[in-house]
């Protein structure tokens, strides 16, 4: 079972990496779905089957579909490939990767550090010793509607605000604009923002 974890983790990392490297947005989206599925596997391995299912149904199922709709609506498909290519110089990668690697090193050092405390003491053993067990949907359900009842209500309010926001913003966009932007300009050529240059005022 231990190997399942490592395999799933590896797949997740590789697929996520592929997501951000992809030029074609549809391929990126598919890699993302793959990554979500691999995370679901990890959930299952770690002992949270209910959540793994949720991940597959809601995250991979619902949210990604939203992305697909948007891509369909904006008809990005192929021609966005060239614009992406245009934007992605090699040097654009250097900055973010450098910064992210520092970030990575920071936290990893923190997590992996052989638990030496400043006073030379050791980290509490519990942290290192593996201790996991499976928490089934029943337990989740009981606590969800036990102490976290108010949490559920709040989550519903959260979704309500998301709904209203999306409704307001969505309605304003006129249908005919789906095919292309109002100024019917090649979307990629927007480097020179001709729409009233921002008057930089000091």
């Amino acid at each position, binding site marked *: 079972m231990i190997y399942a974890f490592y395999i799933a983790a590896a797949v997740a990392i590789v697929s996520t990496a592929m997501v951000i490297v992809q030029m074609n947005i549809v391929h990126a989206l598919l890699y993302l779905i793959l990554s979500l599925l691999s995370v679901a596997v990890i959930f299952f391995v770690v002992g949270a089957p209910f959540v793994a299912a949720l991940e597959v149904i809601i995250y991979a199922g619902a949210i990604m579909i939203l992305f697909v709709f948007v891509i369909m609506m904006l008809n990005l498909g192929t021609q966005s490939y060239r614009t992406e290519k245009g934007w992605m110089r090699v040097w654009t990668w250097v*900055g*973010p990767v450098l*910064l*992210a690697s*520092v*970030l990575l090193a*920071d*936290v990893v*050092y*923190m997590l992996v550090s052989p638990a030496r405390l*400043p006073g030379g003491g050791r980290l509490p053993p519990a942290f290192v010793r593996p201790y996991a067990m499976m928490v089934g949907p029943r337990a989740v359900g009981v606590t969800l509607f036990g102490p976290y009842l108010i949490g559920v209500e709040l989550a519903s309010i959260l979704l309500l605000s998301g709904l209203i926001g999306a409704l307001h913003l969505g309605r304003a966009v006129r249908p005919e604009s789906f095919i292309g932007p109002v100024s019917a300009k090649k979307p990629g050529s927007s480097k020179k923002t001709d729409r009233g240059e*921002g008057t930089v005022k*000091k």
Partner: protein
Amino acid sequence: MMLPYLWLIPALPFAGFLVLSVLGRRMGNGPAAAVGVGSVGLSALVAILVASSFINAPPPAHVYTQTLWRWISVGGFAPGVMLYLDSLSLIMVLVVTVVGFLIHLYSAEFMAADDGYSRFFAYMNLFVGSMLVLVLAGNLLFLYLGWEGVGLCSYLLIGFWYREPENGAAAIKAFVVTRVGDTALAIGLFLIFINLGTLDIQRMMNLAALHWRPGGALPTIAAALLLGGAIGKSAQLPLQTWLPDAMAGPTPVSALIHAATMVTAGVYLIARTNVLFTMAPAVQIAVAVIGAATLLVSGMSALVQHDIKRVLAYSTISQIGYMFVALGVGAWSAAIFHFMTHAFFKALLFLGAGAVIAGLGGEHDIFRMGGLRRQMPLAFWCFLAGACSLSALPLVTAGFYSKGLILSSAWEAGRAGFWLWAAAIAGALLTSIYTFRLVFIVFFGEAKAKISKKPGPRAAIPLVILAFLSVAGGFVNFPAFFGIKGSMFFSRFLASALPSATYAAPLPETDLLLEAVAAIVSLAGIYVAYFFFLSSPEYSREMAGTAIGKVLKRFWFEDWGFDWLYEKTLAAPYRWLARTNRNDAVDLFYSFIAKVNMFFHYGLSLSQTGKVRFYAAVIALGAVVTITIAVFAR
């Protein structure tokens, strides 16, 4: 008993000043002159009455004090507005008021053509008032008020014709240089008050005698500071540069302020605080030495001057030098006697010069005058009387007696006495030479210019009175060795206020010998002047032509380069510093800080690029920084 009306003497001129300054513009010349001259006249009258009652029925201990009001009282410091009359201040008051009145009378006509007529008399009245305050002051602070008052009036009157900037500059120079002396005096006042607890002159002197060790540090410093003040006001050696330039003012002003009264304020101060000086012998000797040096230096400068008034100005400095020598050797009454006679004949000379200048329409250069003997006989004879008195023509002039007294007391003054006497004699020679050089050039020889105006009656009367005084004035202090009863009346009269001379009076025969030497020297001087400037002027031109002659002439003309020295070392650098620092070096520092802030503003606002990915990068960077601080800096 007129003594209680003592306060009227200074009050009248001040009242005159108030009336003239407030209503001056609306009054015509007539009433303005009436008020101006009248107030000083009345004051002179009251002074004479007071003098007579003082002499006939002298108040106890020959001293009368009158406190008008409590000026300031803070803790122990309580100087009041107090008038102190004793024989010394009585003489000063008499001289100031009488000579002042005569000069006011003279200037009533002299200034008639001037548009600032009432303003002139207002300033003159203010001056007389301040001088009287100076002379009558009971405590040093009230004296200081008079002291600065006269300095102010000399500034106002020198710069009276304000249209020419040179007059303004001369006035400012006079006020600033005297102010240097006043500051020394002020510091002296502080020292005296802090260490003796009072500024009342008499009490201060008693306390000093009681508590201070003669020759100790405190009396020496105090005396030195008072001397500094005296030098400033009386234009003695280091601070004498302002007097020659002060001739830019109208001639009556030069007569009254820069000859008769103000310049001798220093002499009065030293005489008044004589106890302090006797307790500091080093300073007293310094007074004598300064006096001697000044009389020689300004004597030589007077030899080469062109401007009639500048000659007289240098002669004034030299005569005050004589008074300082007298004070230095402790002959207090001799100094005051010479002050009185000098007031008479120097005022006379200035008024005569004024008449000449007015007559020639403002001409000052003596080489453009000549042969005025016939054109202005009255002015000539009065001027001649003054000149003789100045050069101490033996027996017949007041100058002879007063200068003789100084010479004899100098001779007796211990070790340094001889040198002082030698310098005085050399000075006497110089004096008679430059005086009669002036007389011969101006009044003898062929007439170079026509006289346009003769001195009117109001100008003539003062000339005549002063001529009489400068001749007869000396008899009041007839030398003792003639054995006439009542001689030395003047010195005996002053004995009540001033201590007798520190050194014993000379034996009658040496006194006679000294007088004789002085007489010979003055006559010789007159002959030398006659030879060089009247009979064969080509000799003087030839002498002036020689190399050293030319250098000496220019050096003396420039008052021994003092002016140049002060300009280069003090005035120019101050002006330069002020000009370069006009916009305040300290301010640059604050504007620099403002620029730094602006620089940071522009730098930071560049960081607001508007790109969302840049912001995300900064957030990530912020996260990294926070984590490293939190984790690694614990």
